[in-house]
């Protein structure tokens, strides 16, 4: 089983992108950082007790699925859209959604475009290997517009092309657009258009068939979300682990019940996951939140209590 | 000299070829060859080009396989059994028209290679043997050179020494002098005469009729894949019987 393999190896192999600032990118020292990276580290902390025991495997759109199904990686956390066919036909298991996204467009301000409906005849840079090119084709066909796609393998090159004016529009997930724009020299010269043309629930996934491992990934993610809901943060987790009067918090942190044991882990698993990089909200703020260069607002990704979609099933 | 040599021929059979036939594809190169070579005998094979002389000699050494008939070398039947082939090859030495020395090995290494790897002789011993035979062919001082540094005549003598190092009981020569300049031919023929005088069983394809007259016990004349005539050299040259032989001799001697 994957859990045993990971434990025996002592390292979690986690598939990420080849580099998308805010979600997963190596810094100048080769250290991986980002929102997706945070999920990997949380799982590693939960399973192995060490958030650094992760081997990050950069994957492209093309290689990510084989990497996962061949067992080269244990977990794919690479803003991958949860779709029916990937779940059912490609035999993967999405363990949840860590970011609710949608495909958007970015254009230079100088073009004076304010709506995606005005894009007829445009040249559009797309990062291939994602659902984006399908959405794009659908959207333009639906609106009876024509366009010229410029398919590009990596975000870095798409960015280059876009900046050099080889395409008028860059389209990818809105979060990716924000991240890309943030890396520009003059982010203010570019606008993200208001239309969101697709639903892109992004989430980590594992291989189909190993449900125990899937449960661990799913509930680690849920623990991060629930932690935010209940106010468990990396700062107060230790303290709360001494015991609180909320049974749900106690069950999460392992002071009550035997949830960890049911997962095949120890009692502290969720606490470690939270300590690894903070709860969902902390990860968000640190990597892609409004105070980062990427500057995404919570939007749909707020807790259900705040009108968002984040809704962790109960820990009981 | 021919008389002296004659005496060493014994009754033992060295090579026995019975009713041997060979085809290249559908081309019938050798037809019903029957030949018995006695130990110590020196046979010269002559004949026009393409008559199958080389092929005959190469069959004895299993360089070519024959399709019909039997070849027995030194009591061993030449069959497709590898053991027999190996046995025969180590009994039979062969000297080629183009020497076929190994250019990447020194003369000494050329001579010791087979003794070491085939006969499993210790290297030192093999080298001693090799030097012995190199002295015999009168080029011990070239032992550390490479074949490319020797003249054609010297190379051919090395080739002879290389064969001798395997201490074969039978030597085959396929036009050993025809790729040589006239001056060098003599060197090589001298070496061969010397060998002959020591009683080595020899089969030699050559057009050197002088050599044949001086050394051979028997001259075999081939044409169109058959042995047309064989006889003692004196008889053969002075009194050929067959028309074909007469024609051939007139050409070759006139030349």
């Amino acid at each position: 089983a994957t859990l045993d393999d990971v434990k025996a190896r002592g390292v979690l192999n986690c598939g990420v992108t080849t580099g998308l600032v805010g979600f997963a990118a190596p810094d100048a020292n080769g250290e991986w950082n980002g929102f997706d990276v945070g999920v990997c580290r949380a799982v590693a902390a939960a399973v192995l007790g060490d958030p650094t025991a992760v081997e990050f495997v950069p994957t492209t759109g093309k290689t990510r699925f084989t990497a996962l199904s061949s067992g080269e990686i244990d977990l794919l956390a690479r803003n991958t859209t949860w779709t029916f066919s990937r779940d059912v036909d490609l035999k993967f298991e999405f363990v949840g959604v860590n970011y609710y996204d949608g495909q958007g467009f970015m254009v230079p301000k100088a073009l004076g475009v304010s709506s995606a409906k005005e894009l007829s005849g445009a040249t559009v840079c797309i990062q291939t290997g994602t659902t984006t090119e399908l959405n794009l084709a659908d959207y333009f066909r639906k609106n009876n517009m024509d366009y010229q796609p410029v398919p590009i393998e990596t975000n870095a090159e798409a960015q280059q092309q876009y900046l050099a004016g080889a395409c008028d529009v860059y389209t990818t997930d809105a979060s990716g657009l924000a991240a890309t724009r943030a890396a520009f020299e003059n982010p203010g010269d570019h606008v993200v258009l208001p239309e969101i043309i697709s639903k892109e629930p992004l989430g980590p996934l594992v291989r189909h068939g190993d449900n125990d491992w899937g449960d661990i990934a799913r509930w680690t993610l849920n623990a991060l979300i629930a932690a935010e809901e209940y106010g468990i943060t990396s700062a107060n987790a230790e303290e709360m682990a001494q015991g609180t009067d909320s049974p749900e918090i106690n069950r999460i942190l392992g002071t009550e019940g035997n949830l960890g044991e049911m997962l095949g882990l120890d009692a502290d698993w969720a606490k470690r996951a939270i300590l690894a990089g903070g709860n969902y909200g902390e990860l968000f703020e640190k990597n892609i939140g409004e105070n980062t260069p990427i500057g995404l607002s919570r939007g749909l990704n707020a807790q259900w209590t705040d009108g968002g979609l984040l809704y962790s099933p109960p820990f009981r | 000299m021919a008389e002296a040599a004659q005496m060493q021929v014994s009754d033992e059979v060295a090579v026995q070829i019975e009713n041997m036939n060979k085809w290249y594809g559908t081309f019938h190169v050798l037809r019903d060859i029957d030949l018995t070579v006695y130990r110590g005998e020196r046979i010269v094979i002559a004949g026009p080009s393409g008559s199958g002389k080389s092929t005959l000699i190469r069959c004895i050494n299993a360089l070519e396989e024959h399709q019909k008939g039997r070849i027995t070398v030194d009591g061993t039947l030449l069959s497709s059994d590898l053991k027999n082939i190996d046995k025969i090859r180590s009994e039979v030495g062969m000297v080629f028209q183009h020497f076929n020395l190994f250019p990447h090995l020194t003369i000494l290494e050329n001579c010791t290679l087979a003794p070491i790897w085939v006969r499993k002789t210790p290297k030192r011993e093999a080298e001693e043997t090799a030097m012995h035979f190199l002295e015999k062919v009168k080029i011990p001082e070239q032992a550390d050179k490479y074949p490319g540094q020797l003249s054609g005549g010297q190379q051919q003598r090395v080739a002879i020494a290389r064969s001798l190092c395997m201490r074969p009981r039978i030597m085959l020569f396929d036009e050993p002098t025809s790729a040589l300049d006239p001056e060098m031919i003599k060197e090589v023929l001298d070496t061969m005469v010397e060998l002959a005088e020591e009683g080595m069983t020899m089969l030699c394809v050559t057009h050197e009729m002088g050599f044949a007259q001086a050394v051979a016990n028997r001259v075999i004349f081939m044409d169109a894949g058959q042995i047309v005539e064989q006889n003692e050299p004196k008889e053969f040259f002075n009194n050929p019987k067959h028309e074909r032989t007469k024609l051939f001799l007139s050409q070759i001697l006139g030349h």
Partner: protein
Amino acid sequence: MTTLSDPPRESFRLSMLINDTRYRAYTFQFIALMLVLALFAYLGSNLVANLRAAGLNISYEFLGESSNYDINQTLIDYTSQSSHLRASIVGVLNTLLVAFLACVTATIIGVIAGVARLSPNWLVRKLMAGYVEAFRNVPVLIWIIIIFTIMTAVLPAPSAFRGEDPDASMLFGAVAFTNRGLYLPAPIWGPGSLVVVLVFIASIVGVFAYRRYATKLLYDTGKLLPMGWPSLAIFILPTLLVYFLLGRPITLEYPELAGFNFQGGTQILGSLIALWWALAIYTGAFIAENVRAGIQAVSKGQTEAAASLGLRPKRIMNLVVLPQALRVIIPPLISNYLNITKNSSLAIAVGYMDVTGTLGGITLNQTGRAIEAILLLMLFYLLISLAISALMNVYNNAMRLKER
């Protein structure tokens, strides 16, 4: 002498499998075959086991499903509703297109550079040596990226042509070099244009006919007609004449900046241009070496013999040196063509949608059918290379010099 008999048929012993030349070959081949079969069986069973574990299967049904993505250069009709199969064919045609263009261009570059390397002019020689060495010793991928970068980073975007005082302007008001590609005027075929086209084709045939006639005349009567300018005249004049007589039936549609891009005219994609020229210049360096080697392989004696017969340098080249050099040049030339075709698979580096980009790229991604897609992809390249090798064999057999 003795009673003749074949070697006695020995009864078969097991040791004969190794010791007998007749059987040994069978033994070895059998072992090799078994090993290969075992290897395949092993790989196959792994595949089956892995696929079963992952709940997948091998199926080519995805080829019939609609592809749902768009391709920016399609030589045949294609929409996002077409099937994956059609998308693959679009990719195949794009591969063939870029390979063809690159082969032609590389040959021209290579021949010029190769001949220039033998020029008596020292400077030209050295310059060409510099070109050849620079391109042969740097990976083609780097050249593709460099040339693509020139395309995108150096050439102006269409927006630069906009405004009162644009940063860039069109060449002759008709041709625009942009980082999205080259915009050219497109012909509009008015009534009567068919005649012009036919006349044009006829005049091409005419050129060949004229040259043929001139040679025949020389052979028959010894009269040597000039070749150069009459050919040119036959090539151009009739078409021009008909064109104007019919009142200019063919007009040009000029590309014009409208909206985001130039509209009208034809566009040659930037990625196509980058890949095409990168492959052409890179392979041109190799071809230059072949050409040089080929010409040098014709011994000096041939030229001297021809010269001493009184032939002029140009004729020596045409009648004596080239026919011989071509035999040396063409086989490696063909394998260079093969290399171009194979290297064109690097199209993904510049986003050109060749077959690796469609079948081996987006289709593979969207359907997840990695094994099937890559298998088909390899099959395609294999077919091309087998076809080219076959061609080469035919050529080699036809051109082999007759020897004794």
